[in-house]
């Protein structure tokens, strides 16, 4: 368009618009945010798909994520290599899923991934303990943690394998009244 500098081609913007819950303007804004995380690394010109990834440490310092106890997991869940390096695509992806418009099902999938600390596609006790400790800043006694994790699994585990599969998780989260309003980042 008539901008001073072309960051994306029209096709790219259209494609992003189709693939995310963002409008053109928001995509450009996101690029701005991404760019300002590491101005020397991220090119302004994205028309030829530069291969550029930002490390986890930079991304979790965004104000949107800084206070989140799961910030590392969020970034890791959205990075293709699992180590938290995010390309711009993945960056957009992350905020698209966490946006207001994303449907519950999609959010549930990524929430599941975020809480799956050991990346085995199951929420086992270990994952739950980590989640809980992050949520409470380890203020609960080990017995309490144990109890809570046991109760959680007992509540949500439908197939009795003592860990939560995605189906269990989805079944549980789909009825949670607060999930949509809390699993949501505005950027």
């Amino acid at each position, binding site marked *: 368009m008539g901008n001073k500098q072309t960051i994306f081609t029209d096709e790219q913007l259209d494609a992003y618009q189709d693939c995310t819950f963002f409008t053109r303007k928001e995509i450009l804004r996101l690029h701005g945010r991404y760019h300002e995380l590491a101005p020397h690394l991220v090119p302004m010109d994205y028309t030829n798909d530069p291969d550029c990834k930002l490390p986890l440490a930079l991304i979790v310092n965004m104000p949107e994520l*800084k206070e989140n106890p799961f910030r590392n997991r969020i970034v890791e869940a959205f990075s293709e290599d699992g180590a938290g390096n995010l390309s711009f695509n993945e960056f957009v992806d992350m905020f698209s899923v966490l946006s207001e418009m994303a449907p519950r099902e999609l959010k549930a999938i990524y929430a599941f991934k975020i809480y799956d600390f050991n990346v085995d596609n199951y929420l086992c006790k270990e994952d739950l303990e980590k989640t809980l400790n992050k949520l409470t800043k380890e203020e609960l006694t080990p017995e309490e943690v144990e109890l809570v994790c046991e109760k959680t699994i007992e509540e949500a585990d439908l197939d009795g394998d003592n860990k939560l599969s995605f189906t269990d998780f989805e079944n549980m989260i789909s009825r*949670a009244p607060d999930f949509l309003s809390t699993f949501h980042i505005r950027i």
Partner: protein
Amino acid sequence: KRANRRPAAKRGGAKGRGRGADEDEDDEDEEEDEAPRGRRKKKPTKKRRDASDDEDDSEDETPKKKRGGAANKKKGGKAQDSDEEDSDVGKGKKRKKGGGKKGGKEEEDSKGKKGGAKGKDKGKDKDDDKDMKKKKKKKKDESSSDSSSHSDDEEEESLSEGEMARLKEEVEEKKKLIANIRNKPWRMKRRLMHLKEAQTFVDKFEGALGKGKGRKWYAYKVMMTKVLMGLPYGSVPRKTVPRAEQPTAQDYSVLMDFQTLCFPKLTQSVHLLDVFNLPGYCKYSVMFYGYYNDQRTIGLLKFRLPLSYLMVGIGTFGYSLMVVIRTMAKNADVGGGDGDEGEFTFSWKMFTSWDYLIGNAETADNKYASITTSFKESIVDEQENQKDENIHLRRFLRVLANFLIICSLGGSGYLIYFVVKRSQEFATRDDLSWYEKNEVEIIMSLLGLLCPPLFETIAELEDYHPRIALKWQLGRIFALFLGNLYTFLFALFDEVNTKLEQEQAIKNSSIWAMKEYYANYSRLVNDSEATPPPMDPADVIRGPCWETAVGIEFVKLTVSDIQVTYLTILIGDFARAVIVRFLNYCWCWDLEAGFPSYGEFDISGNVLGLVFNQGMIWMGAFYAPGLVGINVLRLLSSMYYQCWAVMATNVPHERVFKASKSNNFYMGLLLLILFLSLLPVVYTIMTLPPSFDCGPFSGKAKMFDVIMETIDLDLPAFMGTIFSYAANPGLIIPAVLLMVLAIYYLNSVSEAYQNSNMELKKKMQMARDEEKNRRNNTDSTNQVMKDLEDLLPNRSLIPLAPPPEPGQLNPAQLCTLSSPTKTKPGSAGKGVNLEKDVALASTNPNTRGPVSRPPGPRGPGSMAGPGGGQGRGRGRGPPLR
């Protein structure tokens, strides 16, 4: 998606009509069924019409056929479009179009012309046709769209129809993919790739088949939804309330609403320090009843002050009642909404309690604390369930505790009664100390200060679950406050009655004084004809004006309450915190952890204080309108003051229990106190005669006479008759009866709903159990699981290697389909065919067969049995099963 299809279908229909097709097509709802027929009718040979109609009907009996027809219809419509757009259409093309339009026709053609090769299973035939000739057709399509010089014989034409249909399906499918691609749990790269693929496909073939209007329409739709749903950033304020404010936030908002709405104009500054010296200047200020006079109309607009005074006084109650009850109903609604609460207590706490919007460190800290508390709460709940103890001892202790509390309640009641009596005695004397003047207020405030901790100590005996204990505690404090308030009120009534007697005497004396004044005047002037100048109002002997006296009592009570609250916070919390904090350096034991420690935020006391305060406003506002203003100031300042105190000097309650859970409990208290404060006010309005010389109702026998007066003087005569009829007992009694009946009816209806609710809950529980069992037995092939696996990080990528193609077809993947429990981290590839079935998009209402069918080449095996065809038609479930 549907919206996407709609225009296409419509276009088809419109075209059909334009060509003089049957009127049947006008009905858009029936379009899907009718359209094929309509198209068939377009066939040049009119003779065949009836026959084809019959055939159509017979075909309709087999759902498979119908679907095919419907699908073809759409395609047909598009084909028409594309054909028309090519302006240089030749005859051959028209023929082709005619064929392409009709789905059922194709079968006829193939049956008739190819000669029974297909036998009875027409649907399968169709598939067969398509599959076999697909390649060829595609080519042909392209060529046909490219150039119009094209001649095909009958057979080829029919083939091209099938192919067209096929292509249409694919295009539709791709479009669907494009529409829903954002809902797929894929990596962005894969999404972009698929999008590109799909778009090129659609562009390529839609160009051949029709205009890409669908896409534009879709883009428009997306834009609209974004406009409608996606508010711009920052326009919605952060909604997380700091924890310390949560218990009070709701009450504040409700309480503040009343005040700001009821008397917004009356806020005015009051010299708080003077108030203790009432009667002073304030006594005659706008704050009190006595300020307003009985002028019937004021100004050009004839503002009727007495009438509005009464209306506002009564309207406040009406509005308050409405708000409280509506809030309660709303809360009850919310409570009923997630009826299966308790099923997932811990899970929900674990996975949905963190608010991802939090971006502020302090808020985050509060959230951590609140989450910890809520977990502790649930843990205590859980442990409570498992506990089992000596029930006799506990019962004894509880009875004892209640006995003690009743004793202290009675004691405090008597104390107040005693003090009030004494103050009436004092009222006749002049040589009073400051303490004696304000004894009642001081005693009441002290009781309010000392009793709650006492109750709390006693409640330790009972050993209730904290939340229940909290309710008991609240109930007791409430009883205390209420008892105090009512004792106070009764004493006040005594006073009012004496004032009324006094008034009678003063009235006589003031009339006498007036006569004297005139007599003196005429005697002094020696001219009996001269009109004496009106007496200076300051010299008139005044009645006691009991309404103002009542108002003053309430204002005094409020002011002393404010002082006590603020001082308590300053001394009890702040000074304590300072001492604990700084003396801790040089003390023999640990002050912070040991005895004094820091104060805790007293939720119950504060909430009840608010409720009680609101009750005083309701009660007092009629006699002291300025009370509202004082309270607005008080609540505003105390909110910030208390917020500061809580953040700076208090520690979180050891066992804080969310007050918001028992919202309706507080609302119930509020309603109760509203009712109780409404009683005395309405009683005085209806029965006591207003003061003869002060206030807007002076001179009237009863306050509500203003209404009668207005009806008589200001409204047309017939209104008066109407009102007199309306006030007739003969009308009122039936009305009351009707209301009772309505209540009874609604009550029984709600009971019925409750029953059915229970029934449904039971059913849900059963369904859940069933589901559990089912899941135990079948390892379901879940497409979402596959996607999840697919999203596992690819460790091989860490050294920034080029990522593997996520979309490539991996035959091995097909085998793992039936055993999703086997996780293969890093298996990025997945069959293109499989992806189509991820029905993630909630916006995808399209369950019809043709679209959900994978576009890839389908082996002949898939059409082996009729069952396969059916399943595919429903569009659910993996096609390979």
